[in-house]
């Protein structure tokens, strides 16, 4: 069974996103939440590693956290899907375990 990985800090503050993406298995999912959603924006120095991860895993960003921070759908890296809290719940139940990268 696959793993859902959550990342809640900005990739410019912590190495959590970088570390998380280094521990993915095929079929896993990454969900950026809270300040972690800054990692979903295109054009930043974090974008290449997220784009690379999309080859292995699905990548999501929590929509309420995106809108709270003024990040619009058009700002997202291609392939990163916004989900709401209900979608977050669905991801937790779909994958076999949730690993939080704090």
């Amino acid at each position: 069974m696959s793993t859902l990985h959550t990342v809640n800090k900005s990739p410019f503050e912590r190495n959590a996103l970088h570390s998380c993406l280094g521990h993915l298995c095929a079929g896993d999912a990454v969900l950026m939440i809270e300040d972690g959603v800054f990692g979903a924006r295109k054009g930043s120095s974090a974008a290449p590693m997220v784009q690379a991860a999309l080859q292995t895993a699905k990548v999501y960003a929590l929509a309420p956290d995106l809108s709270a921070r003024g990040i619009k759908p058009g700002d997202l890296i291609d392939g990163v899907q916004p989900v709401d809290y209900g979608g977050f719940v669905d991801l937790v139940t779909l994958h076999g375990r949730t690993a939080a990268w704090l």
Partner: protein
Amino acid sequence: MQLAIVVNEGPYTHQASDTAYQFTKAALEKGHGITRVFFYHDGVNNGTRLTVPPTDDRNLQKLWSELGEQHKLDLVVCVAAAQRRGILDADEARRHGKDVNNIAPGFRISGLGQLIEAGIQADRLVVFGD
């Protein structure tokens, strides 16, 4: 499914408690069961009834207490973490010679074993922290 929730941070300083609350609420709306919400590290600070947050913003303690009451949730504050940070119920206050207790309605103080048990009993465990 049965979900176990772990909250590692206190209210307001980190978003963890907000996210955990919204997640728990969404899970209940989808018909899932919540085995336990376990508050650890500074998360125990979600369980004090003495906060007076500004009225134009959310009151996290009240939100948790009300969600807990509405859905009969087991909101557990870790005793060791609570002792370190000054969250006491009446028994703890008496036991340690303190002149007041401050646990919020709907929360109960218990041991770390409750966290492990929740991990054993639930289908999924999710951690919200910093």
